[in-house]
């Protein structure tokens, strides 16, 4: 059965949708921004986010455009194992659930992951961690911006420069106005849209073919995709899982949410978020696997998802895909902007300046940081040739090396600055070497393993006896009119 490729969205339709959603999102940013007047409001949404929004933000932020566009590609390259392997990235959310509770408990007035590392491990831990954090965050931000331009071009023919600029500008604006409130609020809407969109397209597929047809077609045409023993997929399973553990454990995107959620909400929100995220790569992957059975010729695996939707559902399907992709992009870009600006304000600007910074000053610096990050992402995305995405993959061993310092730092008194520094430095160095000499499929695994080894050695050589209560120390913020807490004396270092 031959199905001709249905028309993809026309540029004018694309522009209309882009403007519509852009205006809507910016409007929401301005509306919710009324709450984001203080720095606490702006950076951590008043530390009172409930379960609904908490869960939604965990889901939406972890669904990037990669989840919707790459999962079908993974399934087509590495078969069922590819989709399953992708789904194991949800384990990072599950693992972070108890950690989020611990983080909020230990640092009730904290803002960032780097702040934790600074107080826990001092400069020895902070320097490698800050470098890794900034590297990962900025490159991710740039590659997401690039993905935005490319995807809008593929889906609707909107020129790359225009699409990318609009996506970046919209995200910068609503994050600027609404801070964490806007980021989390839009995440709720985005998560619903993405989940519903996926279900609609998958149901449309099932109305055309049986799962049995899909299985049959694959076993004849692409047998390895159904193989239980697909070597490339099996060997990289834990490598990819550890990459995602590293991403979640170290990144301020997730820590800032832990600080934003009301006490007790974090663990539940992250656990549920993981559960809701789990089926997404599987359903998206299924769209890719079903394409052969649907008679859809596969030219480019990463556009299979949209192609299937557009073929089966026509213009409506194309518009749905457009919206889903826009949502998955925006939900990640806004989080990166917000979390990285927090990092810049709290852990680079503030420690350097003399005296304590007031809430309003920090709010202003955050705004400046967001704009600067937006400009950086935009200009890099404009000029980058596309090899930048390769650079991001090298972050696997880097973030993988942060796993032990974070986990052990949160729970074990003996974890010491030396251990953390050795773990991150050697884990990254060896992991990166493996990445460039052997391959990506073991680099994160090696980085994490070597890091663990050196962490153990460092703890053995010079164990610490850390007082966790010292982390609950003080916020460096001057009291605002909303601040009910009295600041205790500030402890430096």
């Amino acid at each position: 059965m031959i199905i001709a490729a249905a028309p993809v969205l026309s540029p004018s339709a694309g522009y209309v949708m882009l403007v519509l959603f852009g205006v809507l999102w910016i409007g929401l940013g301005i509306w919710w921004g009324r709450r984001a007047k203080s720095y606490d409001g702006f950076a951590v949404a008043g530390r009172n986010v409930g379960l609904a929004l908490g869960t939604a933000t965990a889901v939406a932020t972890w669904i990037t455009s990669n989840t919707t566009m790459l999962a079908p590609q993974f399934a087509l390259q590495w078969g069922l194992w590819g989709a399953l392997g992708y789904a194991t990235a949800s384990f990072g959310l599950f693992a972070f659930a108890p950690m989020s509770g611990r983080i909020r408990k230990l640092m009730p007035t904290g803002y960032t992951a780097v702040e934790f590392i600074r107080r826990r491990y001092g400069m020895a831990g902070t320097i490698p961690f800050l470098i890794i954090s900034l590297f990962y965050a900025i490159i991710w931000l740039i590659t997401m911006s690039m993905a935005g331009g490319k995807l809008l071009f593929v889906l609707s023919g909107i020129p790359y420069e225009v699409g990318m600029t609009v996506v970046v500008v919209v995200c910068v604006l609503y994050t600027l106005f609404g801070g964490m409130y806007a980021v989390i609020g839009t995440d709720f809407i985005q998560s619903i849209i993405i989940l519903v969109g996926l279900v609609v397209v998958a149901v449309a597929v099932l109305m055309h073919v049986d799962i049995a047809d899909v299985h049959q077609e694959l076993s004849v045409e692409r047998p390895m995709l159904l193989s239980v023993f697909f070597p490339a997929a099996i060997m990289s399973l834990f490598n990819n899982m550890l990459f995602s553990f590293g991403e979640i454990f170290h990144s301020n995107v997730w820590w800032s949410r832990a600080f934003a959620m009301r006490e007790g909400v974090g663990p539940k929100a992250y656990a549920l978020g993981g559960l809701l995220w789990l089926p997404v790569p599987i359903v998206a992957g299924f769209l890719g696997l079903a394409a052969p059975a649907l008679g859809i010729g596969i030219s480019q695996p990463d556009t299979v998802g949209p192609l299937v939707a557009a073929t089966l559902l026509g213009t409506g399907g194309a518009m749905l895909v457009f919206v889903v992709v826009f949502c998955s992009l925006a939900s990640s870009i806004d989080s990166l902007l917000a979390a990285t600006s927090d990092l810049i304000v709290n852990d680079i600007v503030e420690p350097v300046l003399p005296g304590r910074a007031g809430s309003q000053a920090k709010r202003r610096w955050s705004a400046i940081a967001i704009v600067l990050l937006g400009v950086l992402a935009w200009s890099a995305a404009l000029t980058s040739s596309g090899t930048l995405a390769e650079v991001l993959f090298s972050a696997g061993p880097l973030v993988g090396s942060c796993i032990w310092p974070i986990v052990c730092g949160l729970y074990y008194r003996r974890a010491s600055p030396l251990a953390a520094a050795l773990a991150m430095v050697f884990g990254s160095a060896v992991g990166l070497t493996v990445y460039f000499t052997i391959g990506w499929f073991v680099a994160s695994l090696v980085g994490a393993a070597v890091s663990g080894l050196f962490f153990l050695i460092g703890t053995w050589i010079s164990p610490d006896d850390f007082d966790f209560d010292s982390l609950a120390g003080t916020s460096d913020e001057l009291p605002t009119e909303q601040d009910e807490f009295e600041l205790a004396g500030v402890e430096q270092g």
Partner: protein
Amino acid sequence: MMFPLWFLQLLVVGGLVLCGIGVLMLIAFLIVDSKDRQIW
């Protein structure tokens, strides 16, 4: 050795059901949170 058909069916149907439950759950939580004025 290939993954059997029933496994693929389990994954797909299970995945779809979980997505659907997820949407309902999120909306339900929002309603509960808004009743207690505890959205954020």
